[in-house]
C-alpha cells in the first residue's frame, strides 16, 4: 500500500481576524522582511507552498472603512515575485480573479512568476463575485454568479493554451484573445470556492483545491463528492490534491494547548470585532451594546447581507433573519455567539504528537492530502509548526524529510 504523505501550505490571510496584528511583538505586517522571514521558515519546514489571498477593495463595516483590518491587500504576484528571489524550493501561490483581469495579461504575469521562480508558481483561481468589489472597476457588477464560472473556465483554458506555447485564437462574449505568449509555463491550478459551480470548476481543471471542509466527516464527504465530480470529467482522485484550510494551536500538554487556543480565540474576537460582526447582520449601529451582554433586542434592518467585508460567500448572503432567530435561541452573549459561529472547528488543538496522530489518520484514509494552514501569530505560529509538529509528522512517515523536486508540481506529486 502506498503511504500517502501530507502536503502543507501556509495561507497568509493579510486581513481578517485570524492574524493577531495587534500583538505588540507581532511582525511588521506591511514590510517585505516579514514575508521573507516567513517563507524562509516555511522552507526550513519543507512546506509545499506559501499562499497569498486577494482583495480588491478596502473592507468596510456599515459603509465605513473597517479599522480593525490594518494590513491592506497588496498584489500577490508582485509580492511572490519578490519572495521568489529569496527562496529556492517553496511553491508560491497567488490568488487572482478571473473577472477583473485580462486573460492574456494574467497568463503572462503567472508565467513570469513561474519563470523567475524556476517553476514554483501556483494560481488560486477565484471569481470575485460581487458588485461591491466591481465598484472599483468600470465593469462594476458585470456577469451574474454562474456566468463568472463560465468566464473562469474559458479564461483558464486560454491561459493553459498560452502556457503550452500555443498560438491562441479564441473569441466568445467572455474571452477574446489572439496571440501567443512566447513563454511556456505550467503553474499549478488551485480552486477555492465551495459552491456547486466552484466544485465543478475544481473537478474540471484544478490540480488542487483549497477546501473549506476541515472536520474529518466533512472532509470525507467532500472528497467523495469531488471524486464523483472528477469522474464526470474523466479524471480521478489521484489527479487532484485536497488541502482544507486549518489552524493549529500547540502546547506541551493538552491543557496548555487548550488554554492557548482559548486565549487566541478571545484575542481574535475582541469586543469591537464581535460588535462589528453582528452589525453586518443587523446593519444598524450596535456600538452601544455590551459585547458580553445578550444579543441586541432591536430588530435587524431590512435587506440581506452586503459583502462589504469581502468574505461572505454567496451561499451565506441570504436567510439572515432565520439565522438571527436561531442565534437568539442559543441564549449566548454577543461575544460567546461570535466565538460559537466563527470557524473554531477548523482548529487543531493539542500536543505536537496528538495533532500529528490526527493528521496521519486524515491522510492515510485520504480524507485530505494535506492542509493549508492559517497562522495566528507571526512568527510564533509558524515556528511552532515547523520546529515541533513537522518532526512528529516525519516520525510517523507522513511528511517529507527533504525536498525531492524543485517545482511546486513535483512537491505535490502531480504529473
Amino acid at each position, binding site marked *: 500500500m502506498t503511504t500517502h504523505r501530507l502536503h502543507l501550505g501556509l495561507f497568509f490571510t493579510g486581513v481578517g481576524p485570524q492574524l493577531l*496584528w*495587534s500583538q*505588540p511583538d507581532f511582525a511588521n*505586517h*506591511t*514590510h*517585505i522582511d516579514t514575508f*521573507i522571514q516567513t517563507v524562509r521558515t516555511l522552507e526550513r519546514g519543507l512546506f509545499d507552498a506559501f499562499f497569498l489571498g486577494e*482583495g*480588491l*477593495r*478596502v473592507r468596510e463595516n456599515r459603509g465605513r*472603512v*473597517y*479599522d*480593525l*483590518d*490594518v494590513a*491592506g*491587500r*497588496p*498584489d500577490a504576484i*508582485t*509580492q511572490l*515575485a*519578490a*519572495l*521568489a*528571489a*529569496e527562496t529556492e524550493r517553496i511553491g508560491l501561490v497567488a490568488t487572482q480573479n478571473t473577472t*477583473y*483581469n*485580462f486573460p*492574456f*495579461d494574467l497568463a*503572462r*504575469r503567472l*508565467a*513570469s*512568476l513561474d*519563470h*523567475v*521562480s*524556476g*517553476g514554483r508558481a501556483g494560481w488560486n483561481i477565484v471569481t470575485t463575485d460581487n458588485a461591491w468589489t466591481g465598484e*472599483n*472597476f*468600470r465593469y*462594476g457588477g458585470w456577469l451574474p454568479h454562474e456566468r463568472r464560472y463560465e468566464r473562469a473556465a474559458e479564461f483558464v483554458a486560454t491561459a493553459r493554451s498560452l502556457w503550452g506555447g500555443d498560438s491562441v485564437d479564441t*473569441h466568445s462574449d467572455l474571452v*477574446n*484573445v*489572439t*496571440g501567443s*505568449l*512566447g*513563454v*511556456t*509555463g505550467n503553474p499549478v491550478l488551485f480552486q477555492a470556492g465551495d459552491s456547486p459551480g466552484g466544485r465543478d470548476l475544481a473537478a474540471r481543471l484544478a490540480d488542487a483545491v483549497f477546501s473549506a471542509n476541515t472536520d474529518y466527516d466533512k472532509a470525507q464527504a467532500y472528497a467523495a463528492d469531488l471524486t464523483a465530480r472528477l469522474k464526470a470529467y474523466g479524471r480521478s482522485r489521484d489527479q487532484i490534491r485536497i488541502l482544507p484550510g486549518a489552524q493549529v494551536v500547540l502546547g506541551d500538554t493538552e491543557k496548555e494547548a487548550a488554554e492557548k487556543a482559548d486565549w487566541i480565540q478571545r484575542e481574535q474576537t475582541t469586543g469591537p470585532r464581535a460588535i462589528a460582526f453582528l452589525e453586518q447582520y443587523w446593519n444598524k449601529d450596535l456600538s452601544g451594546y455590551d459585547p458580553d451582554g445578550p444579543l441586541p433586542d432591536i430588530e435587524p434592518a431590512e435587506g440581506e447581507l452586503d459583502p462589504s467585508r469581502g468574505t461572505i460567500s454567496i451561499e451565506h448572503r441570504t436567510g439572515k433573519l432565520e439565522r438571527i432567530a436561531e442565534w437568539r435561541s442559543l441564549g449566548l452573549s454577543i461575544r460567546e455567539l461570535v466565538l460559537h459561529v466563527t470557524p473554531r472547528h477548523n482548529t487543531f488543538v493539542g500536543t505536537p504528537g496528538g495533532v500529528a496522530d490526527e493528521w496521519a489518520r486524515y491522510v492515510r484514509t485520504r480524507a485530505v492530502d494535506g492542509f493549508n494552514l492559517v497562522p495566528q501569530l507571526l512568527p510564533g505560529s509558524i515556528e511552532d509548526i515547523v520546529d515541533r509538529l513537522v518532526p512528529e509528522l516525519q516520525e510517523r512517515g507522513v511528511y517529507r524529510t527533504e525536498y525531492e523536486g*524543485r517545482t511546486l508540481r513535483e512537491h505535490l506529486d502531480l504529473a
Partner: protein
Amino acid sequence: MTRRTLATVTAAGGHPGPYELSLNKRSTLETARLVARRAEDARIDALFVPDLLVFGAQGTIGAQEPLVFVSALSQVTSQTGLIATVSTTFHHPFNLARLFGTLDHVSNGRAAWNLVTSSIGEENYGPGELPSPEERYARAAETLDVVNALWDSWKPGSLRAGPDGKAVLDPSLIAPIDHRGSYFSVRGPLNIPPLPQGRPVLIQAGQSAAGIALGAKYAEIVFTALPTLADAQAFTRTIRAQSTRPGLPLIFSSFHATYGATEAEAQRLVRERLEAIDYEAGRSLVADMLGGGVDLSEAKLDEPLPASLLPEISDIRRRRGRAEIFSKLIREGRTLRELIQAAQDTGHWSVAGTPEQLADAVQERFEAGVLDVLSINGLADDRTHDFVVNGLLTELRRRGIVKEDYRGHTLRDNLGLTL
C-alpha cells in the same frame, strides 16, 4: 539646494533566452542578478525593463511581464531604482495602482513606472482595434488621474504605530475617490497602505504631440529618442514650455554608445557594424519606423527618399513619434542607406569614441540643460563593462556630472524628485 547632477539608468538585462523560456526549472533571474549587481556596484540610479506586450517583436523582450521581473529584482538589489514599463491602454487603473503600490512596498520605495500607451499588442486584449493615439493618450491621462487619487487616498498618518506599539488605522484619513470619467468609474480608496515614496516615480515615453502634452502635464521624467543636440534642445524647449512645473519633466535619453580604447577603434567598430547590416531587411525596418504604411522595396539605397513617400502623420496609429523623427530625416535629404543605419538605433542618440569623447558628448547635453537622466548600455557585456565602469562613469564623476554615490534610500531621494 543640491547641485544638479546627471542620473544614470541601465537596462535590467537578463532578457531570457529560449533556454530559460522553456522552463527548465531554472530561474530566469540568474543572468539578471549579474547585471543588477554590476549596476549597484557602479551606483547606477535605476534598472529599466522595457515591454512590447508581444513576443518576438524585438527578440525576447516582452516575454516576461516587467512588474513581475523587477519585483523579483527588488530582492537581489537594495539601492537601485526599478523601472517597469506598463501600458495604460490594456490595464485598469485600480489594478495598476495596486501593482505599482505593491512594487513600491516590496522594494522599500524604489518603484518607477515607465508609462506607455502601446503601439502594438491589441490582438491579445480584444476585442477591437488599437485605439488612435489621441484616444490612447486620453485614456492614459484619465488613468493617471485615477491612480494618483488612489495613491493619495490614504492620507499621512492613516496607518501608524499606537502608543503601545500596536498598528492603528484611522478610517477618517482614508477616503473613497469616487471617480467617474469617460473611461473608468472607480470608487476607491486603494486597499494598500501609503506607499514608501507616496507615489512611484512617473516616467513617460512618447514624442508625438499628444505624448508631449501628457508628459508636460504629468510626467516627472520623459524618455526620449533625440539623435542630435538640436533635437534635444528643440524637444526640451517644447515640453518645458507646456509644463507648469519648473525644471520638469526631466529629460531622459537613451545613449547608444560604441566604446573604443582609441577613437580609431571605436570608428572601426561602427564601420564593422554598418557593414554587417542587412540592407534589404533594413528597408522594412525603415518602413516600420515610418508607420508601416510605406513600401520601400524599390527605393534606391544611395538616394534621398522622395517627399511623396512621407506618411501623413495623423493617419499613423502606432509609434507616431518615431515616424516624425524619420520623416524629419527624409526631409533633411538622408539616403535610404543612412535611414537604415539610423533605424538600427531606432532613432536614439548614438555616439562612438573613447570614454573621454563619450563623456564630452554627454557633458555637452548636460550643460545645455537638455539631459537629466542618461541610459547607459554595455554594463552587462564583458567586452564593454570596463569601458562603462572605469571609463565613461569614472570620467563623468571626475567632471562632477554624475554623483559619487546614492543619496538616499528611495529612488525619489536619489533623483532629487519630491512630490
